[in-house]
């Protein structure tokens, strides 16, 4: 465990340093805009944000900020502290993401099991076709189609914002589209394998009821593959989808992250990147713990 913590801290430090170097390597700056400012005013602004100092000073200042876990003030969101932005807007992305993950797991397992159980029947084939489509259609298309048909045409759900539960329906559907299909494919493949195992045949021979065979014996085994996929999925979805948040105008952290890069808002880029790397490390840890719970043969000692 100790080894793992040290490794995690090293990883965060590496992410911080590499991000710092990369963001100063990309051309452009936070104040270049359609209307150019006079050199004097540019100078005043750079002074205000400490960008007139040598790069190594900026690095040590940022590093000191990181150690105090205070990422400073955003350049492009005037007067707002980056910590506040993260703590106000991450929960919005995370809430949508958690609901979407929950839906994806339920429906993914359901469709996967259904397809595996009815293998080679019309149900299996039509599910496979639908799942393949879900996997290949990019989510900006899904978002646009859902918004246009369910929002504009039949006005079933509101389009912009997140002021009620109904506002959340379209974005959650969009986010869960891909992972549902992915989980269903995973479950189907591993279920089919499991159904061929001897202990399933033995269970059937003992006269166990079908639901008990499917859910108690076969499904438990297939869950391992789903959990392996959960690590990256959790971090990816919780961090918020830029596209979904833009299309449905949801004030999640995903949009802040992408906008900070296009705006060259240096402290913001660093803050959110470091926050995301912590999130990724934590969710991988969570998955490892879940592994040991499901399969006692796996020990958590790495």
């Amino acid at each position: 465990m100790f080894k793992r913590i040290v490794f995690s801290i090293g990883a965060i430090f590496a992410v911080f340093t590499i991000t710092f170097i990369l963001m100063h390597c990309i051309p452009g700056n936070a104040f270049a805009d359609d209307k150019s400012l006079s050199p004097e005013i540019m100078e005043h602004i750079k002074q205000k944000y400490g960008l007139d100092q040598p790069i190594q000073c900026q690095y040590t200042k940022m590093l000191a900020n990181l150690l105090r876990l205070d990422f400073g003030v955003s350049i492009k969101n005037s007067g707002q502290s980056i910590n506040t932005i993260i703590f106000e807007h991450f929960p919005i992305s995370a809430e949508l993401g958690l609901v979407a993950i929950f839906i994806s797991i339920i429906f993914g397992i359901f469709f996967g099991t259904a397809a595996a159980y009815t293998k080679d029947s019309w149900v299996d084939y039509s599910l496979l076709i639908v799942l393949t489509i879900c996997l290949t259609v990019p989510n900006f298309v899904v978002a646009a189609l859902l918004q246009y048909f369910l929002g504009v045409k039949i006005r079933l759900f509101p389009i912009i914002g997140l002021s009620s539960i109904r506002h959340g329906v379209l974005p959650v559907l969009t986010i869960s589209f891909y992972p549902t299909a992915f989980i269903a494919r995973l479950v189907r493949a591993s279920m089919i394998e499991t159904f061929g195992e001897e202990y399933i045949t033995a269970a059937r021979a003992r006269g166990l009821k079908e639901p008990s065979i499917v859910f108690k014996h076969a499904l438990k085994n297939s869950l391992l593959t789903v959990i392996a996929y959960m690590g990256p999925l959790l971090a990816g979805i919780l961090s918020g989808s830029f596209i979904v948040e833009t299309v449905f105008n949801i004030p999640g952290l995903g949009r802040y992250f992408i906008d900070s890069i296009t705006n060259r808002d240096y402290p913001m880029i660093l803050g959110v990147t470091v926050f995301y790397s912590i999130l990724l490390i934590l969710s991988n840890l969570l998955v490892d713990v879940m592994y040991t719970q499901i399969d006692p043969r796996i020990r958590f000692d790495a």
Partner: protein
Amino acid sequence: MKFKMLQIVILIFIASIILSSCGDDKINTNSKDGNATVNAVIGPEPQSIDPGINIDTGTTNYISHVFEGLTKFDTGGNAVEAVAKSWKVSEDGKKYTFVLRDDAKWSDGKPVTAMDFEYAWKRVLNPETASGYAQHLYPIKNAEKYNKKLLQEKDVGIKSINEKKLEVELESYCPYFLSLTSLQPYYPVRKDIIEKYGDKWTLSPESYIGNGAFKMTGWEHKSVITMQKSTTYWNSKDIKITSINWQLLQDSSTALNAFEAGELDFNNGLIPSGEIPSLREQNKLTNVDLLSSKYVGINIKKPPLDNIKVRMALSIALDRNEIVKKMLNGNGKPAVAFVVAGIPGFEKSKDFRNEEGAENYISDKADINQAKELLAKAGYPDGKGLPDIEYATSNLTDNVQLAEILQEQWKKIGVNIKINSMEKSVFSAYRAEKKHELCNAGWAGDYYDPTTYMFLFLTNNPNNFFNWSNKKFDDLYEEAQSTIDQKKRHGLLHEAEKTVIEDMPVIPLYFQYKSTMINPHLKGVYQNSLGYVSFNDAYWDK
């Protein structure tokens, strides 16, 4: 048996999706029932809604609903009384004395004083504020020198005589000064508030205290800014809209969908360009001419563009009618010169573009033969021997489309263009450093005077991306700035513009406009060519 179970579960799944939509209907329907709320979209999350800091035209519209200057624009674009009930101008035009209304109040009930204006203006000029619009206050005496740290704050020509009287001394005669005092950097702000809250004073409704028709009641970042009618505003009895929700939207398809779904009542031009022709056919668009023009910037230090004949040939070879047709669906105006149409002439009834002394220098049609002739004279017959010329642009769809149209048209005279498209912030920095050969450029005017355009060509202007420095132009401009006789002044400015056109550091293309969408029941929305939108006079018809 097992298939039946599956079918039942699928049915439940479908039913649950449909049922989940049967909650209480929260879609905004105020537009129909006469409730006075407006849902509007101007653009995405603003960087700052501090009147002294913001430099974005769209964002100005949030600020202008919460604050009010000494003067404001009427429907004809003239500056009329707002917080100032009257003013006196000295004979030489260099001293203004404003008298403030007695009933002008801040949203917390305190009276608006001349000191608030003095503080606000000096704050914009203070180098530490780092305001991007400080140059709008440069006509005031010693303002520029203070902003550039050459003089002290006390030397600036702004003085509050008493609570209700403000005296302003100008550097030189400035015929558009009252147009300037209508602008956002001239809005008053509260010293006590800013000293207490610092940079964060704009973030919460408690500290964002204004003197305008509305007050901010909430700001959910990247989502919505909400405003309510201010009861302390001196003219609040005439304000019919009770609340405004400014949706902070980025995506134009979303904005269009939200408008179509009834979630928006006003859309300030956030429309996918591909949808414009069909929306126009359905009569859903309102066109607003803008004080805004599009041109190609030339770096005249880079060969072969250092040759005036090559620059001329490039301009003459363009078919501006076709460009307007393709870029603006035929609704814009081809540029006839540099200064855009819509600026008043020396006689207020006329436009700067068609008053006495004005000329249309540029044709809207291409003259391929003359262009080829010029190229040949420059030593490049049919473009032979001419290297590929770079055209730098940001990678926004419209800008790339323009680049491709230009590329195609210039090919006809044998000039090959290499399009260099890059991310917006990279492009802006690249252009500011004058690394380009040709570049995409445009300018939106900030106030109603030709100098809002002409100053771009001054030798030291940061937006002179052209490396162009012309003593004759600089002298004419300076002389015009100190000329009181309007007819003579405009004559000098026309001559200065002619100097630009003759040396061609830019190739004017077209004058721009914007298409907005307004709920047909929402009346009285004010929009002007500077990009200002106001709901102060708006109302819902029954």
